[in-house]
């Protein structure tokens, strides 16, 4: 029993888990995508506090998670991230949770639901893509060279920030804007982990896992999303039997920030 409690505390600290809202409500777990942290749910999650037990967390390597827990072998596939989500739900004694995953976390939710349909009872997939790189007739939207370009871009930025040239590149250190501090902490990504997470995110192929989904699923697709184009959203909807595809009026890859009201509305409609 003592061991169980210690393990629970470890899991919750490892993933910087925050629980809020209605303690008696159904669990709604929000999972952030590559590039940021649980802060990306700032405009969506509060809408569900009255009715749901809202769970927010950072993937290991992102935000305020425990960087020491980063095991490259474990996190070399999305399975490692899915097992973390399962452990969090177990630690909270949750069942039949609604898993809301943005970007790469949509696929992490699929893997978690396929592993433990008792814990994950419904999926909301915002801008999902099971594979980013084109393959035969499948159009993910990117080539292997594009992904290498992302890794270069990431490195180029970290090199600037971590080098002695940082103040010159940062520009305006005398006038930090309100909120800068928060953002750097919220969206902080360890450089080495960010590169690995980018490779795992954009070079994974989880197309076959879609067919195994048995829980109700909602796919939220924005217009002009260069990361997850409409054809990919349609592929996901076709692959998951009985799923619902909702196309948003919003544009871009982060409707959870740019069109939070619309996202909230679609989730409510799906769950009602």
């Amino acid at each position, binding site marked *: 029993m003592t061991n169980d409690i210690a393990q629970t505390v470890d899991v919750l600290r490892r993933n910087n888990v925050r629980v809020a809202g209605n303690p008696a409500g159904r669990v709604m777990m929000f999972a952030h995508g590559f590039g940021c942290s649980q802060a990306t749910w700032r405009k969506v999650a509060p809408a569900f506090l009255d009715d749901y037990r809202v769970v927010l967390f950072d993937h290991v390597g992102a935000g305020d998670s425990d960087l020491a827990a980063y095991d490259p*072998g474990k996190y070399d596939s999305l399975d*490692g991230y899915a097992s973390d989500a399962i452990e969090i739900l177990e630690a909270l004694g949750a069942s039949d949770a609604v898993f809301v995953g943005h970007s790469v976390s949509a696929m992490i939710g699929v893997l978690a639901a396929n592993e433990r349909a008792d814990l994950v009872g419904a999926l909301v997939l915002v801008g999902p893509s099971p594979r980013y790189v084109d393959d035969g007739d499948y159009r993910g939207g990117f080539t292997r060279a594009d992904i290498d370009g*992302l890794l270069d871009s990431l490195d180029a930025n970290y090199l600037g920030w971590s080098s002695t040239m940082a103040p010159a590149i940062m*520009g305006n250190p005398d006038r930090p*804007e309100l909120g*800068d501090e928060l953002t750097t902490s919220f969206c902080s990504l360890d450089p080495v982990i960010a590169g690995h997470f980018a490779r795992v995110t954009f070079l994974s192929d989880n197309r076959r896992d879609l067919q195994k989904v048995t829980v109700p699923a909602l796919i939220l697709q924005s217009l002009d999303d260069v990361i997850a184009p409409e054809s990919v959203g349609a592929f996901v909807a076709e692959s998951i039997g009985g799923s619902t595809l909702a196309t948003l009026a919003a544009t871009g890859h982060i409707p959870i920030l740019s069109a939070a009201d619309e996202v909230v509305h679609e989730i409510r409609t799906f769950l009602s």
Partner: protein
Amino acid sequence: MNSRPWDDVPCGLVVVDGNGLIVEANAALRGWTGFSNDDLIGRRFNSLLDSGSRLLYETRVAPILQLSGSIEATSLAIVAADGSSIATLLTAMIADDGRVHVAIMDARERVDYERELLAARRAAEASELRVRVLQSAAGAFTSSQSEVELAAALAGSVREAFAATSTAVFLVEADGELALAGGTDPFAGSTPGHRPQALALASGGVVTMSSVASARSFSPDLADAMDAARVSSTSATPITTAEGVVGVLVTHFAREREIDAVHIEVQSALALQAAEVLVRLRLQRQLEHIALHDGLTGLANRELLQFHLDRAVEAAAQGFALFFVDLDGFKTVNDAYGHATGDAVLRMASARIVGSVRESDVVGRFGGDEFVILCAGVADDEVVHVAERIRAAVRASYPTAPESQVSASIGIAVVGESRIGQVTATEVLNVADNAMYDAKALGKNQFIARNV
């Protein structure tokens, strides 16, 4: 359009609306990129970026901009009208009206310099990682005291070297089958013949599958096994010594990974390093065995007997009995048939004594034709049964010396539980030895038991 101050500044300026579309762009940006106003206005801002930068912009830069209202000096590449790539540093803020104001600085020189640094750093890190892995592996291997420790160290080093989901080390057992000695095997539930380790053992060479699809063209059964084990890529390397293939080292990846020549080289180098330590460990174990066992009969020698007896007198959990067995008539065998036959009789008598006692009992050759047996936890009446069994077994005829008559004189020292810690090994041995001499003096082929 009249020239405005914002056209004359030495950096590109752009205004983007809430939907990400360009509303205005200044002359400096038009000049660099070669785009006209018509090209730019109404166009999606992120479409100016090259694909790698667009990925970073959408996944990281845009969320930070939305959350904090601004981003500063982010390195992104813009694609000009002629298709060339321009390295820039981009600073942006969200204005009160919700539009995004973007300033773009030409950073070609700085970024070129940074890229050189970056390439050098990546090369240094890659070679440093390999050296570090090989060094730490070498340390872990040489400090291993057993094959299980070595297998665990090898599995751990390889998992670290490749960021593998899991790794497994198999060693070939006496029956020629592979047994898991370290790491984990996700294929444990599949048909043995369709596991990567079996294929590597059968072929004696490296087996790599970079995807389930490529595995399918090789063997549908292997592909199905990979699917069930959630393994997308795998590589199996034989562990080879002068004796041949003694094991297999396997890596498993839960997503498709390119398994290139460098990967195979590093995996093989680690397997070779471990193989050398394995040879040393096995030799050491062999030497230890030789040092503590009798070369003729394979029984424990005097040193090993002494070790077990010392432990028994000091701290045995129960009482025990020590049997001192001396063969009667053995000298006659040597005289009549020669030493080779004498040795054969000794070996046969040893085997018969071993067959007369429990597997947990210690049987040793004390010297010449003398044997000592240590039986833990036997009561007085059981001592009689054991002695009778030994006597009968030794007494049976020896096919290699049919005319001879070999029997056993046995002296037994019985140490009760209350005497543990009270007597010495020498005392116990002397009691058994004297009892044996008395049995011999009374006419051989009999036993005498005494309490110590």
